[in-house]
């Protein structure tokens, strides 16, 4: 099975025009578009089911709770979690990282400890640790960049000495690099460290199996995988979550509260204080069912084929005028194409492309340490998803030519 040729029809936004041109949406690494299945699930929830969850014995409250918990189970299956209780709903991946830092980190990281991250992390996997390190005084180490946009793992064992947590993105949001998570995870475990995987760019695009990857924590976000904004996930092994203190305090996360103190609820509720984003959770549930119906293997194959086509087409049209950052081996990367084109500044490039209805992101992509390593201030990034086509790439390739002419020195 392949991705249906007319899949765009299931995404209402992709039928609109921008600047009088049919939209060419190439910014799914920032946020994906939403299929009808997700929009209608959320709409139906608000129109027919809306009630607070885990409270009240009346029918629609029970239906809301059941829909939300069905979403949790479906999301657990989608990443092959051991149990639905290991799915903690957060606002986004950023909040999931902050949860780990503020709950697990506060208990486990002190002046003699270290954590290991990499030069290609998103700020969400950097700054929460830097904030915590100001209080707790632990060391933050970095796995350096190697050749062709990959990590240099030569000194991994040395870097892991004394490390309590290794936190690595499975796929770079700038370079598209697919990092060898299982290899790093094995080394981390051998060194006595836990392994956290940033799945924000990986889970939407590749089949994800947390058991096979053998990681201990994984953070990802809903809006990059056909789901709504405002919903992210922290997955972690149950025994780790059980041992962690609560993150935010309030309703829902307690079993009992007395003037003398509180008793925390069981997982996952221990980490879900307050009324959750119910519609967004139901929307994310619909999103994983939608992705499942297409098949994550098919989505990956579609994106490999499209990325190959993009490399071929862009080189064919622009030769040495265009440089694509990151791995040249398509099997080792996702469909994230950070482009340097002639000397045209990324901001100007995206402005010209916008006139053609093309949406690409220009900037540092929340990865400033990586941009410094690459020696650039910004890149223009075109990122592909299941609904993109070869025709989208053709329009991009042609429009780049116009930008080149306008800014030629």
């Amino acid at each position, binding site marked *: 099975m392949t991705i249906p040729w007319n899949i765009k029809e299931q995404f209402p936004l992709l039928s609109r025009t921008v600047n009088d041109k049919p939209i060419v949406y190439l910014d799914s690494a920032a946020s994906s578009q939403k299929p009808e299945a997700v929009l209608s699930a959320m709409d139906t929830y608000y129109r027919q089911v809306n009630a607070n969850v885990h409270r009240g014995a009346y029918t629609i409250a029970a239906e809301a709770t059941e829909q939300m918990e069905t979403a949790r189970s479906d999301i657990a299956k989608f990443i092959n979690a051991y149990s639905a209780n290991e799915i903690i709903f957060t606002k986004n991946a950023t909040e999931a990282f902050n949860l780990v830092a503020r709950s697990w980190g506060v208990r486990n990281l002190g002046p003699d400890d270290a954590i290991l991250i990499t030069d290609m992390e998103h700020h969400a996997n950097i700054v929460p640790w830097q904030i915590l390190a100001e209080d707790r005084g632990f060391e933050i180490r970095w796995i350096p960049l190697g050749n062709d946009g990959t990590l240099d793992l030569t000194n991994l064992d040395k870097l892991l000495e004394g490390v309590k947590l290794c936190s690595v993105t499975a796929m770079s949001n700038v370079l598209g690099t697919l990092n060898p998570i299982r290899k790093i995870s094995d080394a981390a475990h051998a060194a006595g460290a836990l392994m956290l995987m940033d799945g924000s760019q990986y889970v939407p695009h590749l089949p994800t199996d947390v058991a096979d990857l053998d990681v201990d924590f994984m953070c990802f976000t809903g809006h990059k995988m056909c789901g709504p904004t405002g919903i992210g996930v922290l997955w972690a092994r149950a025994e780790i979550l059980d041992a962690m203190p609560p993150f935010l305090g309030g309703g829902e996360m307690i079993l009992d509260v007395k003037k003398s103190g509180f008793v925390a609820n069981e997982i996952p509720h221990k980490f879900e204080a307050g009324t959750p984003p119910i519609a967004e959770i139901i929307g994310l549930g619909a999103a994983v069912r939608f992705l499942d119906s297409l098949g994550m293997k098919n989505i990956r194959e579609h994106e490999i084929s499209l990325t190959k086509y993009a490399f071929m087409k862009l080189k064919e049209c622009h030769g040495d005028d265009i440089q694509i950052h990151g791995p040249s081996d398509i099997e080792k990367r996702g469909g994230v194409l950070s482009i340097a084109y002639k000397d045209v500044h*990324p901001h*100007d490039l995206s*402005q010209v492309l916008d006139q053609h209805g093309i949406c690409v992101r220009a900037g540092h992509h929340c990865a400033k340490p990586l941009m410094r390593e690459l020696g650039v*201030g910004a890149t223009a990034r075109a990122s592909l998803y299941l609904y993109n086509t070869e025709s989208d790439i053709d329009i991009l390739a042609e429009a780049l030519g116009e930008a080149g002419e306008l800014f030629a020195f």
Partner: protein
Amino acid sequence: MPGLEDLYREIILDHYRNPRNRGELESPPAHRSEGFNPLCGDEVVLTFTTDGTTITDLKIGGQGCSISQASASMMSAAVLGKSTAEIREITKTFKAMMSIHEGEMAAESDDNATLPQVELPLGDLEALRGVVKFPVRIKCATLPWNALLSGLDEAN
């Protein structure tokens, strides 16, 4: 719909391709001021000398998009040899052209605000007027000006 020709006027592209007063003065003795746009990574580094009242030399460093770099180049040409007071007026006029009216709320209660304002000629800078139609890019155009203002404040 505003077109690219509204944004990328020939004179802007000329300043981008052939930036005026490019470089860096040794600081100290020169004053140094930096501006960053955290959204797009653009940066501008200004180094300038004053004789107490006027800017006697000014160099522009940094990197960024055509709008921020052209604006910096035009700014350097517009403010060299001008007094601090004149530069503040030019900046105010330029920002007004960018639809940024600082202190507008306060000015409304100020009787002086009703007096007719003298329009300063902006020369080449007029070419940046089209930026207003592309609101995302206004910050690019004003980046060097904000750096200059904070540099002047520090120099005082």
